[in-house]
């Protein structure tokens, strides 16, 4: 680790501040540029023109843009130096042998043993750790990118990065350039799948400073219904970086319920970019549950692209110790009669920090937009920090939009009430913390998963607080 910073330190002592920043920034990105040169020709789909071009464009943009800095409005409160000061490398091939650890089991094994489970280790699909993937229900297609490129590259091309490109940053561009596998899910017209599908993205490595690039592409065709639970788990006590990218497309009158859980280790960094595109009368329910991680950043962008589209974005983040959890969401109301409901709740303890930045953009012709955005925070310590910025930008004149944020401490009257009934102080506090969180858990409309998550959340809250 000292090696990585040595050069920077030398420049700091020799050069002026400005020069240092410039050179240092170049150093930070050149590591990835070199790495790209090295692996470029062996990356997945190198022989496919659209992918080759896509990667080339991404790395060129990355070279141009670099990593975000504190001067960028969207990164003002999120110090990424712990990431950019290190040189993260792809894991070696033999690093992807999964050693199952005890602690993974609680979340993995309890969740739907009879359900379809797709497991990715360090960004690569692992059939041997997946479950119930033979004899998929009719209309459901699940393939990793490798098979898609082999069997039907034209289908992949049709849906891959099919959105208008907005809001990319240095991190998401790195995924665009380096991803080496991914998961493609599609559900055919009219198929309603009640059972949820589990996507397990596990990071494990015996070497420090590894970066992995998971990728998900999901398409729900007309009148179909899909439930996804994505678990992001990492328990290694070494620094690692997850740069993930997800694209979800809801065709007319379809519904995707997408629950993303992040349970990274205290030394893990996870930066995710999630994009959803909604067509006419479709619905997208997102539940983002950030349980742990040294730094977690979620960029969630939803485009309500056609009339009648509706999204529900819920989030729950728990931060303690020195953790930083940052949620940036953007909802674009592009067409009339579109609806969005957003509720993010955070519980902070220790010296942790959280950022909520919610942006609702009502475009000029999106009349009759109905948008509601709320962020609520419960601060349990004196030293934690929350930066909350709910935001509305409205360019239409006949809309119903409301937003707000609250930051509070535990209600002492309620605490007294519980204690006066004999419930010890600590237990009463935990009960109230859990009650605060349950508003989000109760809204995950995947019952079996909800039942599994409830005790896990309870235990984490108990242990953490």
């Amino acid at each position, binding site marked *: 680790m000292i090696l990585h910073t040595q050069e920077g330190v030398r420049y700091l002592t020799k050069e002026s501040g400005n020069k240092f920043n410039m050179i240092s920034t170049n150093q930070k990105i050149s590591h990835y540029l070199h790495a790209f040169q090295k692996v470029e020709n062996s990356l997945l789909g190198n022989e496919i023109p659209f992918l080759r071009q896509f990667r080339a464009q991404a790395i060129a943009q990355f070279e141009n843009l670099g990593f975000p800095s504190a001067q960028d409005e969207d990164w003002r409160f999120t110090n990424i130096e712990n990431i950019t000061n290190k040189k993260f490398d792809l894991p070696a091939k033999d690093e992807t042998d999964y050693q199952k650890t005890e602690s993974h089991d609680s979340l993995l094994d309890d969740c739907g043993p009879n359900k379809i489970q797709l497991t990715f280790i360090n960004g690569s699909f692992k059939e041997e750790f997946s479950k119930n993937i033979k004899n998929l229900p009719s209309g459901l297609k699940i393939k990793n990118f490798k098979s898609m490129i082999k069997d039907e590259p034209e289908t992949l091309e049709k849906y891959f990065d099919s959105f208008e490109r907005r809001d990319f940053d240095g991190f998401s561009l790195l995924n665009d350039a380096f991803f080496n596998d991914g998961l493609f899910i599609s559900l055919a017209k009219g198929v309603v799948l009640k059972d949820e599908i589990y996507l397990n993205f596990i990071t494990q490595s015996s070497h420090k400073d590894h970066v992995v690039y998971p990728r998900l592409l999901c398409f729900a065709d007309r009148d179909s219904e899909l439930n996804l639970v994505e678990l992001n788990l990492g328990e290694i006590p070494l620094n690692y970086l997850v740069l993930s990218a997800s694209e979800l497309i809801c065709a007319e009158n379809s519904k995707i319920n997408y629950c993303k859980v992040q349970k990274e280790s205290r030394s893990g960094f996870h930066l995710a970019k999630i994009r959803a595109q909604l067509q006419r009368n479709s619905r997208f329910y997102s539940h983002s549950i950030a349980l742990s991680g040294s730094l977690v950043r979620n960029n969630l962008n939803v485009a309500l692209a056609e009339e009648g589209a509706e999204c529900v974005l819920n989030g729950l983040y728990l931060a303690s110790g020195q953790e930083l959890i940052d949620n940036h969401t953007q909802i674009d109301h592009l067409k009339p009669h579109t609806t969005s409901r957003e509720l993010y709740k955070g519980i902070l303890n220790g010296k942790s920090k959280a950022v909520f930045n919610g942006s609702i953009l009502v475009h000029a012709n999106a009349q009759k937009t109905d948008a509601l955005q709320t962020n609520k925070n419960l601060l349990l310590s004196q030293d934690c920090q929350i930066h909350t910025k709910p935001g509305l930008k409205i360019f239409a004149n006949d809309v119903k939009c409301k937003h707000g944020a609250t930051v509070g401490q535990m*209600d*002492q*009257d*309620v605490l*007294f*009430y*519980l*204690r*006066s*009934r*004999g*419930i*010890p*102080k600590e*237990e*009463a506090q935990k*009960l*109230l913390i*859990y*009650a*605060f*969180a*349950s*508003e989000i858990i109760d809204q995950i409309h995947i019952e079996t998963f909800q039942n599994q998550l409830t005790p896990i959340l309870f235990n984490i809250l108990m242990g953490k607080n």
Partner: protein
Amino acid sequence: MLQIKNLSASVDNKKILKDLNLEVKAGEVHAIMGPNGSGKSTLSQLLAGKEGYTLDGGEVLFEGKNLLTLSPEERASLGLFLAFQYPVEIPGVSNLYFLKSAYNALRKKRGEEELDAVDFMELVKEKSKLVEMNESFLTRPVNEGFSGGEKKRNEILQMIVLEPKLCILDETDSGLDIDALKVVSKGINATRSKNRGIILITHYQRLLNYCEPDFVHVLYNGKILKSGGKELALELEKHGYGWILES
């Protein structure tokens, strides 16, 4: 059971209780009446262990123990119960879970075995009948969206389930219609026993028509001005508090 000796307390440097004396023995029902601002609620909250009061003097013994040094949960486990004037709403915590947590916390503290969900449900179902609360109240979050009457009935339900030794009911009758008052009174009367003390804090005689007290005290300006039997309440109802202050 409860001995309050020369109790003086203040809030934000304002003296609320001044040299208050009261003794409640097992089996007795005491009514404390008094005009607004006389210190009734301060007294009940102070006894239950609410923070924010400064003790200026005196002491409170509960079964011989110095009550005021104990935490609210310790007081509860000794058998003290306060039915709140304004029960709080607790979104996200079901009534049943709350009751079970309280019940088992008390049992644990006493070294008794905790009751499992099934057994506890049976117990609560039985007790809810007494206060005419149907089962849907148990699954709803504590007091959330409850009417005033439902909140008070819920307080009585907790009291019946937790079986305290000393019950302090802080204006449990206020805001109740006549039917709800009867239900609440039924619950209180069922709680009456020779092993239990009850303090009814109230503005009105009408609760006392249903729950007859053994003693009536008039609290005014932080101290007990007059004590008597149940007939004192009738006089207060007829003549107000003025005649006591003049006498």
